[in-house]
């Protein structure tokens, strides 16, 4: 499934328009040191909005990053993500509700 399909199905908002990668899975974590161990193509759900997270997400080639609970990244974070080709998405609800919504959208 493509990132653009999930954006439409799960009603996510976009902070940038970088790339439309294939989603191979979902990973939920708020720790940068935890993220660097995941496989490529994951949709990363997190609360962290700092640059360190984008640096880690780029290293493991995530499909996109979703910030839950209405978190909004700063402009320099969005610029770095765009440069790295990482799509940044947002969701107003909590992470658990987002996880259920992603599952219902067909992301496995």
């Amino acid at each position, binding site marked *: 499934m493509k990132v653009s399909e999930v954006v439409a199905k799960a009603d996510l908002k976009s902070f940038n328009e970088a790339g439309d990668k294939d989603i191979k899975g979902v990973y939920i974590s708020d*720790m940068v040191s935890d993220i660097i161990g995941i496989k*490529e*193509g994951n949709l990363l759900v997190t609360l962290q909005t700092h640059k360190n997270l984008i*640096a880690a997400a*780029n290293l493991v080639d995530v499909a996109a990053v979703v910030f839950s609970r209405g978190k909004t990244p700063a402009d320099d974070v969005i610029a770095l993500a765009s440069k*790295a*080709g990482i799509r940044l998405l947002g969701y107003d609800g909590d992470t658990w509700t987002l996880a259920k919504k992603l599952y219902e959208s067909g992301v496995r």
Partner: protein
Amino acid sequence: MKRNFPIAFLLYHTVPAGTSKDRVKFAHYECGYMMDVRKADLIKAKGDLAGIYPLVAAAAVKKILAAFFEGPSLFFGVALRSFFWYIMRPEILKMKTMAKAACQHKWVMTNIRSGYLVIEGCFHCRNRISFFSEEPVPPIDDYQEGEHFWSHLADYQASKFDIKCERCGREVPLKEVMATMLCMRCNPECGVYQAGSQDRDRKTWVYVALCANTSHATGQCITNEGLRALNEYFNSGFQDPAKKIIVVPCDLRKSVDTCQGIVLADVGLTEMY
């Protein structure tokens, strides 16, 4: 240095019959904080270790003799196995080496440990060191080590890992890698900047593997084998074929103080504990 009686007691009582006492020997070496052994003690330790080999050889001879007296078939079995291993050993080792060299490695992370990246500085010589602590709470005490007076500067939650090939089982320990840092291309004169400048048109990102010896006073940094494995690991499986990750050693950095890279550590999370 005083003998550590709790450890001796524990080891002597691991076998209820008390036979472990005959198989364990203790030696003591003077060291500083953490694991730094003095050079004189290091030489002594190597000598002690070398002394173990004659004991092992004697034990092997004892075993063969015991097999001989126990029964001819057992003795010939042991002797035949030893002879076969002696004759075929170079060929077996050669085949194993060839198989490993021909392997198209598929690296995965292994031995993932969680802990803290602790950074300390010496106010005397202004050197900086970092180490990985697996303790529940990161150590913050000041201490003296030779001419150095180390003080705690910062700590971040981090994880350490090694790399292992799924196909041939080869393992590359990354014990000297403390963290990874994304280069923000702040200084064209820096070696890290230059490492990525040749591939500027491609989607190339340069990451720096940070070693424990931040000031490189000892002249040592990340091993070539570790760097090669990290580069192969992080460059596998990209959806975009133009994307490339270059991992370089931290001794390429022009200045530790002015470097503007982004360290992949959980900055700020430590304050929660």
